[in-house]
C-alpha cells in the first residue's frame, strides 16, 4: 500500500481481568482503515467487535479492568503509548464513536441538545447558541422530527431509534477523521436507516473520513462498505473487499453467515440456515483453529494447529487451513451452474 493508512491496528489484544481470571476478548487483531474508506466489520455476536472498537479509543479502565497489547496507529502515532491527556484530545476530535447501546450511553440527566452541543463546543470554535443551532441541524439531518423541540427532551423521553440517532448526531457533529459506528442503525426503520447511511456516506465523502462500520445487517454492508473484516471469537478470520466476501467467501464461517441471511424474497416456510454448535468460551479456547468445533471442513490439522491469516488473490485474506479447497469447491459449483 503506497499511502499510509489512517488507522492501522497490529496484533491488538485486549485482556479483561475478571473474577474467573484473565480473558482475552480480542486476540491479535490486525487490520487497517484508509482515509475515505468504509470498512465493514461483521462477525458472530460476542466475537469482540465492540471490544475492538472501544479499545481503539482506550475506553476500558486500564487501572482495574483491562489491558491492551499490540499497536493502534492513528496516522503513525501509536495510541496505546499516549498519555491520558493526549488520548483525551484524540477522542471525539480525531476519532468519534457511536455506541451500540443507545439508552445507557446517553446521560439521563442532560437534554439531548445539551449532549450534542457539548460535543460541538468541545471541538469547534463556536458560541453556545451556535452550538445549539448546530445540534438542531444535526438532529434534523438524522431525520428526527421537530428537532427544535426534541433538543429540549431527555433521553428517556425518546424512542429507541431516536436515541440511536442522537448518538449518531453526537459522533458526526465532531467531524472526525475516523468514525467508529457500532451497530448504528439496528433500532432504525429502513427508511430512516437509508437516510442515515446516506448521511454517513455523504460526510465520509466530504471529509474524506474513514469509517469502521460494525453491523449484522449484511444488506447494509453490501450497500455502503468497500472492504469487510469478518471476526470470530476475538480474531479476524477473513478480510476482503465487499464483493469477494459476498461472492466467494474463503472462510467457512463467512460462508455460514452468508447462508443464514433471511432473504426478502426467500421461502418463508423453510427453516433459516444456522451454523451448528456454540462459540467456545473465552477462557476455554480450542487449541487449534477456533472455528474447528463448528466447521464442516474441520479435520485433524484444524484441531491441532492454529491457522494463520493468509493472503489470497485480490488481497483477500482468510484464516483457514482449507481456504483453497473451499474456493475450488465454490468454483466448481459455479461452473456447474453456468
Amino acid at each position, binding site marked *: 500500500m503506497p499511502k499510509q493508512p489512517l488507522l492501522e491496528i497490529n496484533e491488538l489484544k485486549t485482556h479483561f481481568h475478571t473474577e474467573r481470571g484473565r480473558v482475552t476478548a480480542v486476540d491479535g487483531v490486525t487490520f487497517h482503515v484508509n482515509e475515505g474508506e468504509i470498512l465493514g466489520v461483521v462477525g458472530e455476536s460476542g466475537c469482540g467487535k465492540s471490544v475492538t472498537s472501544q479499545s481503539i479509543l482506550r475506553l476500558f479502565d486500564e487501572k482495574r479492568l483491562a489491558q491492551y497489547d499490540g499497536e493502534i496507529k492513528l496516522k503513525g502515532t501509536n495510541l496505546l503509548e499516549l498519555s491520558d491527556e493526549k488520548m*483525551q484530545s484524540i477522542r471525539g476530535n480525531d476519532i468519534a464513536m457511536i455506541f451500540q447501546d443507545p439508552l*445507557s450511553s*446517553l446521560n439521563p*440527566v442532560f437534554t439531548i441538545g445539551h449532549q450534542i452541543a457539548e460535543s460541538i463546543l468541545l471541538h469547534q470554535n463556536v458560541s453556545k447558541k451556535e452550538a445549539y443551532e448546530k445540534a438542531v441541524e444535526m438532529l434534523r439531518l438524522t431525520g428526527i422530527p421537530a428537532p427544535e423541540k426534541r433538543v429540549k427532551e431527555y433521553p428517556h423521553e425518546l424512542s429507541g431509534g431516536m436515541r440511536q440517532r442522537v*448518538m449518531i448526531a453526537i459522533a458526526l457533529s*465532531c467531524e472526525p477523521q475516523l468514525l467508529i459506528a457500532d451497530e448504528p442503525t439496528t433500532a432504525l426503520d429502513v427508511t430512516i436507516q437509508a437516510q442515515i447511511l446516506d448521511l454517513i456516506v455523504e460526510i465520509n465523502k466530504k471529509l474524506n473520513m474513514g469509517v469502521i462500520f460494525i453491523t449484522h445487517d449484511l444488506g447494509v454492508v453490501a450497500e455502503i462498505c468497500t472492504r469487510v473484516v469478518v471476526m470470530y471469537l476475538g480474531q479476524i478470520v477473513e478480510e476482503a473487499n465487499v464483493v469477494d466476501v459476498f461472492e466467494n467467501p474463503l472462510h467457512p464461517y463467512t460462508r455460514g453467515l452468508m447462508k443464514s441471511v433471511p432473504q426478502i424474497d426467500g421461502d418463508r416456510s423453510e427453516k433459516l440456515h444456522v451454523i451448528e454448535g456454540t462459540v467456545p468460551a473465552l477462557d476455554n479456547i480450542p487449541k487449534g483453529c477456533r472455528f474447528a468445533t463448528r466447521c464442516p471442513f474441520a479435520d485433524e490439522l484444524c484441531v491441532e494447529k492454529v491457522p494463520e491469516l493468509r493472503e489470497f488473490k485480490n488481497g483477500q485474506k482468510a484464516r483457514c487451513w482449507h481456504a483453497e479447497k473451499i474456493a475450488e469447491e465454490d468454483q466448481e459449483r459455479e461452473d456447474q451452474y453456468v
Partner: protein
Amino acid sequence: MFNYIIKRILSLIPVLFIVSIAIFLLIHITPGDPASIILGIDASQEQIDELRQQLGLDLPVYEQYIRWILGVFQGDFGTSYFSNEPVTTSIIEHLKPTISLAILAQIITIIIAIPLGIAAANRRGTVADQSIMGVSLLGMSIPSFLLGLFLILFFGVKLGWLPVAGYQPLEAGFFTHLKYLIMPAISLGAIQAALVARMTRTSMLEVLNTNYIKTAQAKGVKNRSIVYKHALRNAFLPILTVIGQTFGILIAGAVVTETIFNIPGIGQLIINSVERRDYAVIQGVVLFVTLSYVFINLVIDLLYGLIDPRVRLDND
C-alpha cells in the same frame, strides 16, 4: 408541579398540627415544670402551685393546648415563661447566628467534601483514596465537642488567632462576624463533611462505571468535566439529601457546637428551653423547626426533579 407545591404546603397543616400535639404530650410526660425551675431549689410547694396557676400550668393539658393553638392561629406563639419575651422574637433572635453558622458550615462542607469524595472515587483503591476515606472516618467518629475544643485550644488559646468563643452579629462588620463563626463552622462542617465526602464517593462509584461516562469520554470531554458534570449530577441525589439534612440539622440547632463556642443560636435556645421546661418556647421552636424541615425537604425534592429529569415526584 404547581399543584405539587400547593399540595406540599397544604400538607404542612396536618403535619404541624400533629407535631404540635405530639410535642405537647411529650412535654407533659416530661417531668419538671417551669414554675419549680423559676423558683429554684428553695421554693415551697405552695409557691410553686401559685406560680403554676399564674402561668396557667394548672389547667388540664387539652385546655392548655386549645388556648395555645388558638393563639397560634392568631399568630401568637405565646411568651417565654422565663424571659417574658414573645416566642417569635426569641426564635428570630436566635435564628440569626444559627443561619450564619449553618451557611458557613455548609459552604465549608461542600467545598471540602465534594471534591474530596470525588477525588477518592476517581482514585478508587489507591493510597489517596484510602487516606481521604481514613480521614473522613476519623471525622465521622470524632465527637463534635472534642473537635471544637481542639480547635479552641489550638487556634484560640495557643495561637491566639481567633476568639475562643462568642458571637458578633453581622452588624458588627462582616469580618468580625466571620471571625467568631469560622471555628464553630469548621468543627460543624468537618463532621458533616466526612459524611458528605463518603456519600459522594459511594454515589460516584456507582456512576463512574456507566456507559454514558464512556460516551462522554469518547466525545473527548475533559476528565474534570466528566467527573464534575456528567458523573456528579447523576450521583447527586443522595449527596443533596445528606446536604439538605445537615442543613436541616444545623437549623434545628447544633446544640453541642453552639454550647462550646457559646453561640446564642437555635440549638442553645432549644437546650435552654428544655432545661428550663420553658414550654412555650419549646413548642414554638419545634413548630418552627418542623416548618423549616418541611421547607428544606420541599426545596430538595424540587431540586431532585431539576437534577434528574426521570425523577418526577409530582406525577399522578
